[in-house]
């Protein structure tokens, strides 16, 4: 009796072992999680996709497909510097070369290298090989980065016609309209996306943000509340707290923010990336700091706002709030210094308004130097992301603009201190600036302008 039972157990264990070996070898156990990951990518649940793909890797000795899905997901999240490594692993695990090449091309497109690869992208749009939506999305994103917005809208419109059930084209077009200040049209697109996919969190978030910017707080609150079912929901919760503040429900907002601010910054950043946003600043610290100040808890606000300013010295909103908190705790001299710094930066940025008006008035002209000046002013006094945008708009018109390469080299070198993946860009712009110096002056110049 005992022998028979032992025998059965041994057979079971043997079966399990064989099954695991065979499944691992041929990737059977990865089939389902890979399929789930693929489905999650298609429905833009990118964090979910990553989770399933990572799981699939654990169940397979041959993780090529999982690595490929991870690379694609990272690309869609805008984490372009991580894409290459995963594609390499996918290639070494046997994923076909043309798929790898295609994904690399899409990553390039998404990074704004449109001009260089436009012909290849056009060819890919004709020969889609089942990747039509991916190509259109990356193509449109790349065009947006190069500020070729009308072309991007044209690509998105074609995408929507080809894939009428896909909410992503509506969402992407909404983002462009949003950026252009065409908020009615943006709202229409977000709502259209949500009609197609009611749980499309990026659209919920974008619509919530748009509504909140119009102080339509109650509906915005509803949108952000719906976003809270996301795996990484810090961004949704931060914005939910902003809505609650707007409705005078400060205590509820305070409770949420105190929870969020305890999360690692990387988690908060991931939550924003998952809704297509990349905050440059410490949003949670800023929100909690200003709320504490508004409730006259200036001492509690102070360290939060100081942290936000230390993180991004160009964050004028945080610096202003810091000055208010300093004033609130009686540090009037320090407060006056901070107020003055804010004032100086604001005064400097006034030139931007005039320049942008002039650029917009003659969009058909390149206006290289004005664009450069706008970028420079933002780099010194305002949003560096906006500065990067304007400087790239210079390079789109004059790829050899020496001063722009120099400024971007400095910018990326600064970023590389926190994230070494920016080293490559820093070096690239440094060498381009140096090359241009050599070409124009006839001798090399070590430091960027």
């Amino acid at each position, binding site marked *: 009796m005992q022998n028979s039972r032992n025998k*059965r157990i041994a*057979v*079971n264990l043997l*079966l*399990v072992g064989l099954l695991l070996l065979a499944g691992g070898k041929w990737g059977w156990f990865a089939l*389902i*999680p890979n399929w*789930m990951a693929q489905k999650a990518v298609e429905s833009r649940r990118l*964090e*979910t996709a990553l*989770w*399933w793909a990572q*799981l699939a890797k654990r169940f397979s000795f041959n993780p090529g497909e999982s690595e490929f899905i991870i690379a694609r997901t990272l690309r869609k999240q805008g984490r372009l510097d991580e894409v290459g490594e995963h594609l390499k692993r996918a290639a070494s695990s046997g994923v076909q070369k043309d798929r790898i090449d295609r994904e690399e091309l899409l990553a390039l497109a998404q990074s704004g290298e449109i001009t260089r690869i436009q012909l290849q992208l056009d060819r890919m749009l004709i020969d889609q090989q089942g990747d039509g939506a991916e190509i259109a999305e990356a193509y449109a994103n790349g065009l947006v980065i190069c500020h070729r917005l009308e072309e991007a809208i044209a690509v998105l419109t074609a995408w929507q016609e080809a894939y009428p059930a896909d909410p992503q084209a509506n969402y992407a077009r909404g983002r462009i309209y949003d950026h252009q*200040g*065409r*908020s*009615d049209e943006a709202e229409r697109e977000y709502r259209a996306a949500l009609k197609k996919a009611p749980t499309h969190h990026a659209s919920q978030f974008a619509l919530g943000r748009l509504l909140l*910017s*119009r*102080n*339509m*707080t*109650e509906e915005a*609150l509803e949108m952000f*509340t*719906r976003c*809270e*079912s*996301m*795996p990484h*929901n810090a961004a949704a919760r931060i914005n939910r707290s*902003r809505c609650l*503040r*707007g*409705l*005078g429900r*400060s205590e*509820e907002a305070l409770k949420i923010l105190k929870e969020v601010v305890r999360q690692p910054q990387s988690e908060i950043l991931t939550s924003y990336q998952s809704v297509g946003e990349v905050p440059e600043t410490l949003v949670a610290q800023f929100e909690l700091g*200003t709320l504490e*100040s*508004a*409730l*006259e808890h200036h001492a509690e606000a102070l360290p939060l706002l100081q942290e936000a300013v230390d993180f991004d010295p160009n964050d*004028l*909103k945080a*610096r*202003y*709030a810091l*000055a*208010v908190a300093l*004033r*609130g705790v009686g540090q009037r001299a320090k*407060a*006056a210094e901070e*107020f003055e710094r*804010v004032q100086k930066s*604001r005064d400097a940025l006034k030139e931007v*308004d*005039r320049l942008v*008006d002039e650029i917009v008035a003659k969009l058909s002209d390149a206006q290289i130097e004005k664009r450069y000046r706008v970028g420079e002013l933002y780099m010194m006094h305002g949003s560096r992301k906006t500065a990067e945008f304007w400087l790239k708009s210079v390079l789109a018109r004059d790829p050899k603009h020496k001063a722009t390469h120099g400024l971007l080299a400095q910018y990326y070198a600064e970023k590389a201190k926190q994230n070494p993946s920016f080293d490559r860009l820093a070096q690239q712009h440094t060498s381009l600036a140096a090359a241009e110096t050599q070409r124009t002056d006839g001798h090399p110049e070590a430091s960027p302008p």
Partner: protein
Amino acid sequence: MIDSAAARSFACWLAFLGCFYCSGCRPAASPPAAQSLDSTGSNSGQRTQFQFRDAATELGVSATYRNGRESENYAILESLGGGVGLFDYDLDGWIDVFFPGGGAFTPSKTIEGRMSTFFRNQGSGSFKSGFVEIGTLAGVAEAPFYSHGCAAADFNNDGFPDLLLTGYGGLQLFKNQGDGTFQELHTAAGLLDDAWSSSAGWGDLNGDGCLDLYVAHYVNWSFEHNPVCNAEGGRRDVCPPRAFDGLTDIIFYSNGDGTFRDATREAGLKPGGKGLGVLMADVDLDRDLDIYVANDTTENFLYLNDGSGRLEETGLQNGVAVDQEGMPNGSMGVSIADFDGDGLPDIWVTNFEKETFALYRNEGHGQFIHASRESGVTAIGSLFVGFGTAAGDLDLDGDEDIVVANGHVVYFPSQGTDRQLPILLENLTKGQFRRALLPPDSYFSTPHLARGLALGDIDNDGDVDVVVAHTNEPAAVVLNETPRNLASSQPLAEGNHWVSLQLVGTRCNRSAIGARVVLHTTRGDQTRQVSGGGSYLSQGDTRIVFGIPAGATLTGATVVWPTGPDQVLGDLQVDHMTVVIEQGLIATRVAASADSGKP
């Protein structure tokens, strides 16, 4: 061969694996339960059922501000619109109403003024007689320039309120001669200012007992500098203010003999700014007048006064120059009130669309913090372009509510139409605001292209009425007909009550601008100030109306005169207007209208 037990084990294993995939290890935690959304967070049982009716036509008030839009010059000059002035020019106890007329453009691009209108309130024991237009008779109708705003006060301390008119190209000073007529004497008085002026405010800045004058200037527009700007879709539209440079405001100090001197340098005014709203009040409670200027798209100014008329601009440091994100807004109208009942005056500013109207809460010593979100103000939405605004206890429940006149500035707004709904914000408790509940036939339920706004008890029934100037449509005289017993669950006799005080200075300026009153009730104190300027291009009545909520008992009041000492009023009567003369000489009671038609 696998025996049945082994097969069962395998099946169990597969089932385990299946469960693992399907439920046991989901990547996402289940979402937190959605909180129930109390959309207003309000104690709706306590909301007032406001009732307001535009009675302009039946009262004989027919005034339309014209901006010359029909000439299609797309001039930013057209955007500002006109104000309204409420003051009792003939001292008969009834508020009279003045409207600047605006202007027009000729085909040869010259700019002309349109006649102002002035309506005498014929009330005498009863309000039913309405108004009669006396602009020409009184000598205030002529406007040699394109007019915008007005400010009334007794600049020469002769007991009769005088009138200042602002606009594009000059000022007009109408001295009240006490016989029902006015004499224009801006040149003789030294009010020489040919810049584009918007709002103005009177107040004694250097403590000499005579009123000084602050005049806000807008931008450097002219037909020689009238760029072409386009709206979405390429259609031409009015240019935004950032297409122009701001003009430095001007301040005139009284010489004490009815004349003025340009004291812009003497006082220390800051250059630039695109001034639209002016308020003169004591924001740091040091018994001198400070000045707040609402600037369009640039930082608002707060001039703190050292008492001698030397001003220091501290807007940014004191937290009232910008919004909660440190950004300057397109500010237009301004008002001051103690919204949260802490005895400190808070500042209220109306702003451009997609910005939040600003409630700057006073934290003491003239320090403010932007508290629009915490006070529920942001929840009203941000598509309003707010202009005239004023604070008053419209439901007589013991705290100050807010009225805002809205209307767009461009021909082709990117969202909605140029006409917008006026807003009434009800102060629920301690500075927590919600948009008021109003019936569909109310004035507040109809969109207008509104600009100037002023509050005053037009019909002398104890509650505060609203007068609004519109652009290219007739002005509204909006009577407050809010039933007083619905604001509480108390029976009619126990409803809300009121006290109205008119302050007359003897040592300080006669208009008592800068004086503060603390009303004492069994439910706490209420604080109000007589301020100069305020709202947008407009002059509100300077009488102070306090609401006394049902169940509270009035125990007295203290008047804090700018020149001191404080005056204690022990025997005020509710539901009466009282004239309080500085130094406690006389406290004359004037019965309220017996025929107010109130429930």
